């Protein structure tokens, strides 16, 4: 049994290392504008190998200025949402907690909308999103108070705070001019299509740092998931480390949300799928969630880019697929894979 489980984990880690890269290369082939696969390959090889073929590929602009930033954003945002979800579930000892149930997502969305509509991006949307994401999660913790480890209390507080920020978001929409409103609504539904290298220059490093830090904290999450009294008796500064994890989760989620809009359910579904495959140990769950979240969002984006003649907002797809999955998980909760 031990051997089987170890082999399974080893296979999962190998897959996690390879899958996002393979999917990235394959996804470069997919898009509204059809590029022959051979041309895609030669363009990639030209870019990677210095002095490959002399003449510049006519497809280089589409591949590297339009597709590549979008695909990288999908990978990073997927990893950010999944890793934040896994970390928050551990420290709240609650498998149903994720960015949404703590108000982080709509707090971030409100902050980014404020920046886009009223400040003309003078304050970067990422920064505004982070400030309000932290405000939202602190509000949830304040409302939940001492009962924060109880599932119902934290979910209820999260619902209240999310509702408040959704209302504030509607208020922003009300005051936005028609042109800004249109792009705001499309962004809110979740889309990776607006990614430019300028946006990513700030977003990707921040997500990279946040996700890396949470992956490094993976074993600590096991300790924190035992409960406050227990972790304290084991010598952990519980308050400080929990705030660190919450801050990192809010930072990564807010950075992603500021560019992609609201993409739901990744943070809940992915860690659960990973736990079903390899067990509850966060030393495995957190890094594997990063790879799985990245891969899943990339594939979801490939689907919305190609499934219809128009682009389906990715937030709608993740909800339509995520909610039935969530119901199945809820029915199964209490089983050993939790």
């Amino acid at each position, binding site marked *: 049994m031990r051997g089987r489980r170890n082999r399974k984990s080893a296979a999962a880690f190998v897959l996690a290392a390879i899958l996002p890269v393979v999917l990235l290369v394959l996804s470069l082939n997919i898009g509204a504008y059809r590029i022959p696969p051979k041309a895609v390959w030669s363009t990639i090889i030209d870019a990677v190998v210095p002095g490959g073929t002399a003449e510049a590929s006519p497809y280089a602009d589409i591949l590297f200025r339009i597709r590549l930033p979008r695909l990288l954003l999908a990978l990073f945002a997927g990893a950010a949402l999944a890793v934040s979800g896994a970390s928050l579930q551990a420290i709240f*000892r609650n498998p149903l907690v994720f960015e949404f149930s703590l108000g982080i997502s709509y707090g971030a969305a409100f902050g980014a909308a404020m920046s886009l509509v009223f400040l003309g991006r003078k304050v970067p949307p990422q920064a505004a999103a982070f400030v309000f994401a932290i405000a939202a999660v602190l509000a949830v913790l304040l409302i939940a108070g001492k009962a924060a480890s109880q599932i119902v209390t934290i979910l209820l507080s999260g619902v209240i705070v999310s509702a408040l920020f959704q209302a504030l978001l509607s208020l922003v929409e009300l005051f936005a001019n028609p042109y800004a409103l249109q792009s705001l609504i499309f962004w809110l539904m979740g889309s990776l299509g607006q990614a430019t290298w300028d946006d990513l220059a700030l977003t990707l490093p921040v997500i990279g740092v946040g996700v890396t830090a949470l992956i490094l904290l993976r*074993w600590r999450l*096991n300790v924190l998931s035992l409960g406050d009294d227990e972790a304290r008796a084991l*010598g952990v500064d519980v308050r400080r480390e929990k705030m660190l994890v919450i801050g990192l989760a809010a930072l990564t989620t807010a950075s992603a949300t500021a560019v992609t809009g609201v993409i739901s359910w990744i943070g809940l579904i992915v860690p659960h799928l990973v736990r079903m495959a390899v067990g509850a140990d966060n030393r495995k769950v957190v890094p594997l969630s990063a790879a799985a979240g990245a891969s899943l969002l990339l594939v979801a984006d490939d689907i919305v880019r190609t499934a219809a003649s128009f682009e389906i907002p990715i937030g709608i797809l993740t909800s339509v697929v995520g909610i039935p999955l969530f119901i199945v998980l809820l029915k199964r909760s209490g089983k*050993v894979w939790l």
Partner: protein
Amino acid sequence: MKIRVDRLAFSYEAFTLCVPSLTFADAKVTAVVGPNGAGKSTLLKCLAAVHPPPKGTVFVNGQDLSALPGKSRARLVGYVPQEPAFTFNYAVLGFVLTGRAAFIPALASPGRHDLEAAREALRFVGLDGFEERPFFELSSGERRLVLIARTLAQQSEILLLDEPTTFLDPRHESEIMELVRRLAVEKGKTVVVTLHALDMAVKYADEMVFLKGGAVVAAGPPLQVLDERLLRAVYDIDMGLVDVGGRRLIVR
């Protein structure tokens, strides 16, 4: 290591635990007994500094426990809670490894040395071969052993065990108490254990502390302090004592 409690007071709601002065002997088993709500678990949590007491001091070898940073405290004092409600179903070895938290920086994971300490702890409690078993699939007795193993992996000189035998059948109850004795005798640990089973306390403890209503009623070696008047005073029912073959039995 010796524990000395000085003018300890802890209150929540209507309950107050008040211990003017109390010592726990080095490398001995001390059983804390008393009726429900007497403050046994509260005393233990104060000793573990899980709840810092609003008043008073707990000294370990003359050092004020609350003045120590968490890591140093955890290396002195290990705490085994009553069977806690865990959310995640970790494997036994992964669970025991969390006892190493005081030795591992926040951004690091356990290394080979930590794994050895965890495996050694599992061997000592007799659970070798259980490494990869999911915690939720264990019996109540096995779970208690895992909790004790985790505190052993913590390598603290003092072990505080909160009702480790509650809900166990007589055989598992005896096994846990044998293990508690071995911790003091073989490993030289100072063990404080809260118990409801008086017969277990009399048989396995070097010292007993009787608590009632948040106050210490009596303390000392079982055969010296235990008499019918004390039992009546602590538990409000009549119990008889019979000495048979050098052992003192409690009869109801």
